């Protein structure tokens, strides 16, 4: 029962499947290699001190490196700085982003909504260093009169905005028209439908957008160099220079004695981003 066309098809099928397998390997290999590298080089530094101590100075690090010990200290000032600035940035970007997203959804057919949407798209394409420069002129020069967490947060908030705006609009659009109409048929005013029906219905979508925006900015370095500058101390004053994990990585990179800390800090940052992504994936899965 030889069937040449069938055989040919099976061979084609196998080739195709093999090709896809190969390509997927090519795609995932960088991430696997990155994680492997980070773990193998960075795990030694990840200990309690890593989370509870400030970054060491170069002398301490040199002594440790020369005697073959692990570098003392950690990245506490970076972690607190990142948390602090992400918090302030979120406090600025989330309410504004949600409001603009709701506005775009609400006014979807209006011409000015189209213009706002275009501006949001452009904003998304602005290089982060340029946003850093803008925050420098707005905040560093005019408000805090010096490098500050507030300036860093402002730059980060502007980066978060377009992501939150678009995800809010998309989430609201995905909610079936029939749910909206159910609200109208009960005489519920439009703003209450948005607040009490649409936002709760789209909650996981909105949360996902926010988490992805945070994971997008948490590793930003360039805009912070021009705004938050960095600090050797744990700083929780909005008007003072502040460190951040990516800023520390950059500083470690510039100090030959601190090479090991680059890997552990990067590993930490990578894990945080991965975690944020996993949580938002989970939220998306729950939604559907």
């Amino acid at each position, binding site marked *: 029962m030889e069937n040449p066309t069938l055989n040919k098809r099976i061979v084609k099928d196998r080739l195709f499947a093999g090709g896809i397998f190969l390509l997927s390997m090519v795609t995932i290999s960088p991430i696997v290699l990155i994680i492997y590298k980070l773990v193998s080089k960075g795990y030694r530094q990840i200990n309690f001190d890593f989370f509870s101590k400030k970054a060491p100075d170069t002398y301490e690090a040199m002594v440790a490196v020369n005697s073959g010990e692990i570098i003392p200290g950690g990245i506490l000032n970076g972690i607190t700085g990142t948390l602090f600035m992400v918090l302030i940035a979120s406090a600025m970007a989330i309410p504004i982003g949600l409001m603009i997203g709701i506005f775009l959804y609400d006014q979807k057919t209006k011409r000015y909504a189209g213009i706002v949407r275009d501006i949001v798209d452009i904003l998304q394409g602005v290089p982060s260093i340029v946003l850093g420069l803008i925050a420098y002129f707005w905040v560093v020069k005019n408000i805090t009169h010096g490098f500050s967490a507030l300036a860093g947060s402002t730059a980060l908030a502007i980066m978060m905005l377009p992501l939150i705006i678009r995800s809010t609009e998309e989430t609201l659009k995905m909610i079936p028209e*029939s749910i909206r109409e*159910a609200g*109208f*048929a009960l*005489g519920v*005013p439009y703003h*209450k439908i948005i607040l*009490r*029906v649409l936002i709760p*219905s789209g909650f996981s979508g909105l949360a996902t957008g926010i988490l992805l925006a945070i994971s997008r900015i948490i590793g930003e370095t360039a805009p912070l160099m021009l705004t938050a500058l960095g600090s050797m101390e744990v700083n929780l004053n909005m008007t003072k220079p502040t460190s951040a994990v990516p800023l520390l990585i950059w500083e470690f990179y510039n100090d030959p004695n601190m090479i090991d800390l680059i890997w552990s800090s990067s590993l930490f940052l990578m894990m945080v981003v991965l975690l944020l992504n996993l949580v938002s994936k989970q939220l998306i899965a729950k939604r559907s």
Partner: protein
Amino acid sequence: MSDLIKHIDDPVLEIRNLSVAYNKDKPAVTDVSAGIKKNKVTAIMGPSGCGKSTLLRAINRMHDLYPNIDINGDILLNGEETTNMSTIMLRRKIGMVFQRPNPFPTMSIHDNVIAGYKLNGIRLKKSDRNEIVEKSLRDVALWDEVKDSLTKKGTFLSGGQQQRLCIARALAFRPDMILLDEPTSALDPVATKKVEELLTQLKEHYTILLVTHNMSQAARISDYSMFMYLGELIEYGKTKDMFIKPIDKRTEEYLTGKFS
């Protein structure tokens, strides 16, 4: 046209010379006048696109949502112009049920029933709340099925149960009238039968206006029928009369399945 419209005495709702147009040159409903009889089921029939939903949605002013829609004519509820009423008052008096069951996905069964109160910020005592929930769910014969799972999400129910939940939600305000737009077209035959039985029971307390694609459904449960064609009300009369002896030729053609 059957002149029966003039004989509808004490109508709950009166539609006078109503026209609705989504865009100026092409009206979807043209000069419709009709009175709706209290405590009866009135069916609106007609081929797809003839303006049934458009007419229905004009009654509780759902078209207000879309500013480009052009509406002319008057609608009176118990003698009062609906345009003079606030939308919240109007929609408390006229409930609406849609083609697809649309319970609020984030709300429990209990909260879905009283969603009209909750979302409008109308505060109720706990005892009143529970009473309304139980009464409304009993009205739609859903109470026994869900009384132990009131805190579960409404979306966990079957399609037919969801639709009855949506009817309960519309009844929670004790309206004068409920509008239903093809409420069974997304349901299986068993669930459809349940909803139909329900509607014939509900007319004891409510006036029911039902859009349906399904002629046999109209024949089964309605007391009065309207036949619409291309936006016009062609014929309106007692369902029995209309099905036995339609006056207009187009009604007859529709009822005999010449077009649909």
